[in-house]
C-alpha cells in the first residue's frame, strides 16, 4: 500500500463521514459545517488525482464563498433545530424512498464495476499533474461552446437576481 492509497482512503472516509453528518445533524449550522468538511476531503481527492487547480477552486468557490453564504442565511433567519417528525410526510416520503433506492443501485453498480475493472489501479496510472495552462487551453479551444454557454447561463442568473431585488425595493418605496 503506497502513501497515496492511504491518503485516498483517509480522504474518502472523511468525505463520507462528513456527508453522513450533513443529514444526521439536527441543527442546520452543524450540517453546513459538515458539508465544508466534505468539500475539503474532496479537494484532497482532487489533489491525489493531480488536479491541483480543481482542488484549489473547490476550496475557494465552495468552501470559501458558497458555504459562507449558506451560513449567512442560516444565521440571518435563525433557523432552529429540526424536529424528527414532520420533516418527511406523505408524497415526499414516497419520492425519497424511490430516489434512495435508485442511488443505492447506482452506488452498488459503480462499486461492482470498479472492483471488476480494477479501475483504482487504472486511475493511479493515469495520474498526471494537470496544470492551469492545459485547463485554460482546453476551455478556449475544445470546450469553447460549453464554456460560453455556461457563462451566459450565469449571467442570466445574475441579471435575474438584480431584477428581482429591484422590484422588491420599488414596492417597498
Amino acid at each position, binding site marked *: 500500500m503506497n502513501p497515496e492509497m492511504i491518503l485516498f482512503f483517509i480522504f474518502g472516509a472523511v468525505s463520507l463521514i462528513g456527508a453522513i453528518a450533513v443529514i444526521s445533524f439536527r441543527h442546520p449550522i452543524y450540517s453546513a459545517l459538515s458539508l465544508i468538511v466534505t468539500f475539503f476531503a474532496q479537494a484532497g481527492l482532487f489533489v491525489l488525482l493531480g488536479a491541483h487547480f480543481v482542488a484549489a477552486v473547490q476550496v475557494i468557490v465552495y468552501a*470559501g464563498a458558497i458555504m459562507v*453564504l449558506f451560513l449567512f442565511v442560516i444565521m440571518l433567519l435563525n433557523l432552529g433545530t429540526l424536529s424528527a417528525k414532520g420533516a418527511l410526510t406523505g408524497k415526499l416520503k414516497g419520492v425519497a424512498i424511490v430516489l434512495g433506492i435508485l442511488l443505492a443501485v447506482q452506488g452498488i453498480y459503480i462499486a461492482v464495476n470498479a472492483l471488476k475493472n480494477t479501475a483504482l489501479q487504472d486511475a493511479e496510472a493515469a495520474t498526471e499533474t494537470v*496544470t492551469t495552462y492545459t485547463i485554460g487551453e482546453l476551455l478556449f479551444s475544445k470546450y469553447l461552446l460549453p464554456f460560453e454557454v455556461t457563462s451566459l447561463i450565469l449571467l442570466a442568473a445574475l441579471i435575474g437576481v438584480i431584477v428581482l431585488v429591484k422590484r422588491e425595493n420599488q414596492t417597498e418605496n
Partner: protein
Amino acid sequence: MDNLPLHVFIISSIVKILIIAHLLIIGVMAMIWSERRVSGWMQDRLGPNRVGPQGLLQPIADGIKFLFKEDLIPNHVDKPLYVLAPVMLLVPAMIAIAVVPFGSSMTILGHEIPLQIADINIGILYILAITSLGVYGVVIGAWASNNKYSLLGGLRSSAQMISYELTLGLAIIGVLMLTDLPDEILTKLGDDEVNPLSLRHIAYAQGVHSWNILVHFPAFLAFTTAMFAETNRLPFDLAEAEQELVAGYHTEYSSMKFAIFFMAEYMNMIVGSAVVVTLFLGGWHFFGLEAIGGPFWSGVISFAILFVKTGVFLFVFIWVRWTLPRFRYDQLMNFGWKFLLPVALTSIVVTGTLYIATNGNRLWIGIGNVVAAFIVVAIVAGMLAMDNNSKSAVQSTPAAAPLRGLDAVE
C-alpha cells in the same frame, strides 16, 4: 527542490517549518508591542514602557495575564463551536505562509535549499483558498456566542469578506499575465516552463524585470485595500466596531480564547504583508543587494530583505489605523463593489490588451494601467454623483440601511 535527497528534503523542510512558525509567533509579539508603541507615538503619548527596556517585554506580560485569567464559558453558548471557533481562525492564518518564499536559496553542506516551505504549482490560489477560510472562525464564533452584538459582527464580517475576496483574486491576474522568466533562471530552478501561479516564479520574475508595483500600480492599490478588509483592520473593522458592537464577534470570549483571536488577526496581517511584498514589491530583491555574498550569505541577505520589507509594510498597517476613520457599512459595500472591483477588472483588460498591442512593453502597460484606472474611477464617481442628485431631487436621501432584514434576527 526535486533534486534534493529524501533525507535532506525532510530535515530541511522540518527546520524551515519550525523557523517560520516561530517567527510568526514572535512576529505577533513584536506587532503587539509595536502597535501599542507606534499608536502612542502617533497620538503624542508614551505607550507601554514599564515592562523591560522600552516596554519590550509587554507582550509576554500580556500573554501571562491571558493564560492565568479565568477561562469563562458563558451559559447560553453553543459549546463545541464556541471552543472550536478561535482555532478555526488561527489555523488558516498559520498555514497560509507555507507557500510564501522567504528568500532565494541557500547552499548548506553542498545542498541548495530553496527558502520556501512548499513550492506547490497553484501557489497563489492556495493562499486565496486558505485566507477565504478564515471567515469561518469569525462567523462561527459570532454565532456560537449567542449574543446579538457578536452575531451582527459576524454577519458584517462574512458579507465584507465575500465582497472583498473578489477584488483580491482579480487584482492578481494582471501580475500573473506578465510573469515570465528567461531560460537560464528556469534551468537553475529546475523547471521546464514558467508557472505564473507559483509565488517563487513571481518573485524571480521581479528580479529580472521591474517590480510589479510599477507595472500594476492600480492593481496593487486594489489588492492592498482588499487585504486590509480581509484582515478586519481599520478602516474596515466593522466586525468589531467598539462604539456599535462592544467588541463584535469576540465579545463573549475571554482569557486565552480571546488571545487566540487576537493572535490570528496579527498573523493574518503578517502573512498578508509577506504576500503583498512577494507579489508587488519585488519579494526578496532590492537593487542587486540580494546577490552579494556567496551561495550561503546571499540566502541570508535575501531573507533579511524580505523581512525588512514585510516589517515596513506592517508599519503601514498601523499607520493607516490611526489615519483613516472607520467606514460606514453602506460606504464599505459601495467602495468594494463600485470602485475596487471595477479597478481590478480594468487592470485585467488593460494589461491583456496592451500586452498584445505593445508586444509586452512594461512601460506602456504601466502607464496604461494608471490612466485606465483614473478614467474608471472618474466614470464611477460621476455616475454615483448623478444618481445621488436625481434621488435627492425626488426625496431626501434615505438613511443608511446596514443589513436589511435584520429584524428577522430578533
